[in-house]
């Protein structure tokens, strides 16, 4: 596919792209699947599915320990995936990439390990629109070592309130900022460069939760000047069970290990162990070998289409959704952020989001309904739940029209 030449996906490109996702031709309850839940987890292209199966069929063994041919091949493939991720994020060195199970584990790693370097009296600053994955680990850290947890508010439109953010940094007590790069509920893309610059000016380090952002845009951690960046493979067309923590080398070097076990030590006696250099220090035990390789393939796949094309396609879909959904009687779109990724949350008068989701499902349409692992945000918005449609490279405008039309019928049915 040469979509990146033109920066948009033509109809032909899109059909070709969709044909690479076998699941998209499934039917659900007798209707063609309309999959609008990619922000929860994206579907996988053939290359990822086949590549992982091929590895297990032909070149698989445990890594870093075998002296035999199979182990060497597996180790090479696993480490090549690390290099691939490092290039993908624009990291300064491949050693700055730590594989984890998912974004949640990556954030917990930082909270546990970097968190143990913080002192009582210091604070961690998050925002009102964090996923529970970027909230609960900091509460646990607070309760463990007695730091303060600060929460930067959002505006009614769903943007981060930058004045308030600046004010919360002002006393210089914030040791670490941990903020989403894109909200999974509002779709808000946060002004990452600004947030980083402001945090650094106040003497704080900053972690960006890129779980949603990396799927939709090119991210370069060095350009962002961030300190930590996390994402999760399964939202990026890769498999489950693999996530990524990127951090500056000097931070990783200074941080104590997260978990102990095999592979993370350079020598062990009963008295003490000497930690292995990074990233091995943070990868105790047998990692998700095949999944890491699958993630590397997924990244290749994404880059073969290109973020210019994916970004333009998703922006067009989002614009279309923001035009047709509000025309459905009783429907309100949640939030109006300045910059929105391919995520649209909505509510409908007189119909509960769970009833919406169940009825859409009967029509083959998959959306997410609930609090989206962001209960405090829901409370801030004065809602208990929303329905959410989210878009991916394979989503079509027609699917959004089917969604809008079906919502119209659901509303008629209830009123």
């Amino acid at each position, binding site marked *: 596919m040469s979509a990146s030449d033109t920066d948009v996906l033509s109809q032909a490109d899109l059909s070709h792209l969709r044909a690479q996702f076998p699941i998209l031709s499934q039917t659900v309850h007798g209707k063609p699947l309309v999959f609008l839940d990619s922000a929860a987890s994206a579907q996988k292209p053939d290359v990822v599915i086949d590549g992982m199966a091929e590895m297990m069929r032909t070149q698989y063994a445990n890594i870093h320990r075998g002296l035999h041919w199979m182990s060497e091949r597996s180790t090479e493939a696993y480490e090549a995936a690390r290099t691939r991720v490092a290039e993908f994020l624009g990291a300064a060195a491949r050693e700055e990439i730590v594989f984890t199970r998912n974004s949640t584990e990556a954030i917990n790693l930082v909270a546990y390990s970097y968190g143990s370097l913080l002192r009582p009296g210091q604070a961690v600053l998050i925002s009102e629109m964090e996923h529970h994955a970027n909230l609960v680990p900091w509460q646990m850290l607070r309760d463990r070592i007695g730091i303060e947890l600060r929460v930067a508010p959002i505006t009614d439109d769903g943007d981060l309130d930058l004045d308030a953010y600046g004010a919360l940094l002002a006393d210089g007590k914030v040791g670490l900022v941990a903020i989403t790069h894109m909200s999974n509920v509002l779709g808000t893309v946060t002004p990452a460069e600004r947030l980083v610059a402001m945090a650094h000016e106040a003497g704080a380090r900053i972690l960006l939760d890129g779980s949603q952002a990396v799927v939709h845009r090119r991210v370069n951690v060095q350009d962002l000047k961030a300190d930590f960046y996390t994402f999760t493979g399964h939202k990026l067309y890769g498999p489950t069970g693999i996530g990524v923590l990127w951090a500056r080398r000097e931070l990783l070097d200074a941080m104590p290990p997260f978990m102990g076990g095999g592979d993370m030590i350079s020598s062990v006696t009963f008295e003490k162990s000497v930690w292995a250099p990074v990233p091995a220090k943070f990868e105790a035990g047998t990692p998700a070998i095949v999944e890491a390789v699958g993630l590397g393939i997924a990244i290749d796949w994404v880059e073969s289409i290109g973020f210019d094309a994916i970004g333009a396609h998703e922006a067009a879909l989002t614009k279309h959704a923001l035009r047709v959904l509000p025309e459905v009687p009783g429907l309100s779109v949640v939030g109006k952020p300045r910059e929105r990724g391919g995520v649209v949350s909505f509510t409908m008068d007189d119909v*509960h989001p769970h009833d919406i989701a169940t009825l859409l499902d009967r029509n083959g349409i998959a959306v997410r309904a609930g609090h989206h692992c962001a209960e405090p945000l829901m409370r801030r918005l004065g809602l208990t739940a929303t329905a959410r449609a989210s878009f991916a490279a394979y989503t079509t405008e027609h699917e959004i029209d089917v969604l809008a039309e079906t919502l119209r019928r659901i509303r008629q049915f209830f009123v």
Partner: protein
Amino acid sequence: MDECSLYDTVIVTRSRSPHHAGVVNEPTSRAQGVNPLCGDRVRLSVRAGHDGIEDLRHETRGCAICIAATDLMAEVVTGRTRTDALELGQRFTDMLESQSPPGEVADDADMPEVLRAFLPLKTHRSRLRCATLPWTALGEALNHD
């Protein structure tokens, strides 16, 4: 949406205009049930005497299934003894949770017809708790009065 038998007329109409919403006068007990997964919340107030449940009203915030299940529960348990009401709740939950498909549920002649409207939930297992939540709350209310 004829294609979804779960949203039976009785469920939709009861969710739109419940018959037993509100709070009873001089309640003998109150209870609340919350489903943390979706934020549904059922508040019950019950007045029970020697002969059993005299009145039951609810304030429910939730989906159509949850509101209708609560309202229909209020209807079918009023006039029943505590034991009888709790036992009905157990049979209702068993009916929904048993693995047998909706069409092959062992015939329970004593199951009120209105509660059978929830049988299609057997194929929407992620929504089962929407219908059983009020019964859990009722158990709380009756065991703590």
